C-alpha cells in the first residue's frame, strides 16, 4: 500500500472493517445491533461513493463486508418470525451468534494488546542502539568473502533480486468467499434481470441454499442500483415483494467495471 487509503466513514467515525464497526457500535454507543438501520449505512455509503473522484477499491470492498455482516445478522433476526421455526436452524443461529461473539472478543483482545505493544515501541524508541561495529583496525581481518564468486553470479543475483515477486496466494476463507462472490453475483443478477426485464427478488434468490448467498445477491442488486442499471420497487411495506427492473441498454460493458472493481484485491 503505497499511500494509505482514506478510510471509509459512517457518521464521522472511522472504521477499519466490520468488526471495528460492530465493536464501536456496541461498546461505545451501546447499540443493539438489530436496531441499526441498514438503510442509514447504505445511504451513507452511496453518498460517500458519489463524492469520490475515483473508487477506492479496497475501502469499498471492506464496506461491502460491513454491510454483508449486518444484513446477515438482521436476516437472522427476521427469519424466525416465520410461523414454523426449524429447531436445527434455531440452534444454528445460537451457534453462529456465539461464534460472532467470540470473534468480536478476540478482535477486541488484539486491539487492546496492540496498544500495549505500541507503548513498548514508544518506550524502546527512547534508546538507540550502538551499530557502529569494530573500528578500522579490524577491517583487515575480514576474509575475502567474494573469492570464488564469479561476476556472472553477481549478475544472476541482480536478476534474482529484481525479478517480479510472485503474488502471494491467500487461501479462501469465510471472509474472502463473501468478497469474491459479490462479483459473480453482479454478473448473474445483471444477466437475469436484463433477460427478463423485470423480476422479483425472490426469483433471483430461488434455489439458494446458504443465507450468505442471499445476502450476496442482495448486495449485488445494491451495486446495480448504485450504477443505475436496475431499479427496485417494493409496494406494501416490509416483507412485500421486491421487484427488480432493468434500466440499462443491454450491453455487457456497463456491468464489467462493477465486476472488475469487486474482484480487485488490494
Amino acid at each position: 500500500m503505497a499511500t494509505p487509503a482514506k478510510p471509509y466513514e459512517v457518521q464521522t467515525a472511522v472504521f477499519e472493517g466490520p468488526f471495528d464497526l460492530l465493536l464501536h457500535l456496541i461498546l461505545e454507543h451501546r447499540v443493539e445491533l438489530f436496531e441499526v438501520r441498514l438503510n442509514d449505512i447504505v445511504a451513507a455509503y452511496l453518498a460517500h461513493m458519489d463524492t469520490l473522484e475515483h473508487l477506492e477499491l479496497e475501502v469499498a470492498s471492506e464496506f461491502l463486508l460491513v454491510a454483508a455482516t449486518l444484513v446477515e445478522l438482521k436476516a437472522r433476526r427476521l427469519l424466525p418470525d416465520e410461523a414454523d421455526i426449524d429447531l436445527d436452524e434455531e440452534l444454528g443461529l445460537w451457534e453462529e451468534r456465539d461464534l460472532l461473539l467470540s470473534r468480536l472478543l478476540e478482535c477486541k483482545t488484539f486491539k487492546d494488546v496492540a496498544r500495549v505493544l505500541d507503548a513498548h515501541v514508544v518506550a524502546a524508541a527512547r534508546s538507540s542502539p550502538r551499530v557502529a561495529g569494530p573500528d578500522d583496525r579490524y577491517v583487515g581481518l575480514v576474509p575475502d568473502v567474494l573469492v570464488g564468486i564469479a561476476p556472472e553470479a553477481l549478475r544472476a543475483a541482480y536478476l534474482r533480486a529484481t525479478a517480479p515477486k510472485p503474488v502471494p496466494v491467500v487461501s479462501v476463507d469465510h471472509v474472502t468467499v463473501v468478497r469474491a462472490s459479490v462479483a459473480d453475483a453482479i454478473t448473474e443478477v445483471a444477466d437475469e434481470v436484463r433477460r427478463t426485464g423485470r423480476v422479483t427478488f425472490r426469483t433471483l434468490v430461488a434455489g439458494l441454499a446458504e443465507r450468505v448467498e442471499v445476502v450476496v445477491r442482495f448486495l449485488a442488486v445494491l451495486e446495480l442500483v448504485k450504477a443505475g442499471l436496475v431499479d427496485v420497487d417494493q409496494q406494501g411495506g416490509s416483507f412485500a415483494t421486491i421487484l427488480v427492473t432493468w434500466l440499462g441498454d443491454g450491453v455487457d460493458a456497463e456491468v464489467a467495471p462493477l465486476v472488475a472493481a469487486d474482484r480487485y484485491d488490494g
Partner: protein
Amino acid sequence: MSLDDADRAIEALVMVAEDPVDPQLLAQLIEIPVSEVERRCADLSARYEAERRGFTLARVAGGYRYQSHADLAPYVERFVIGRQSARLSPAALETLAIVAYKQPISRAQMTAIRGVDVDGVVRTLLHRGLVAEVARDGGPGQAVLYGTTRAFLEQLGLDSLAELPPLGEHVPGADVVEALENGLRAGDDGRELRKTRGPIAPPA
C-alpha cells in the same frame, strides 16, 4: 573500583558488536561460564546506571548491547533522524500483535481474526522487517506462515517472546463481554442468549 579483565573484555566485545551479543558467545570468547557472563553484565549495567552514564548495557533480543539512556532521547532523536522508523498505524500494530501471539500464522488466519483484508499491512510489516516468512503450511495451499523477527524484539525492547505481556491479562473484562452479548441479543422477544463458551482462552 577498577574492572577486571573479564569485565573489560565484555565491554570491548559488546562495544564492537553491531547486534545484541549472545551471552553464550561472550562466555566462549572470554572462557568463563555463561552464568558468570550474565552476572557480570548485570553488575556492569547497574554500575553504569549508578554512575549516571549516558548509555546503558541492555538485554535485548537474547543478547547484550549498548544503547543510549532513555533520558537523553531529546538529544539522540535530533541526531538519529531517519534511522528511526515511522510509527506503525493501528491496523499494522493490531496485525503485528496477532502475529506475535499466534505465530506461525497465515494471512488467511490473520484476516479471519481482524475481519478485514491484511495484505497491505502484512506487506508493510515485511518491509519493516518486523515479521518474516517462517514456514509453510502442510495443507494443500502450502500457505506461507509468518512469525516475528529479531528486529521485532529489538523495536519493542524485549529480550524474548516470553516477555510479551500475557494475552490473558488483556481479554476484555466482564463488562465488555456483557455489552457485546447485549448488543448481539435477539432483541424484542425476550429470548436469552445461551452461553456456550466464556471469553476466549489465552494462547497456550
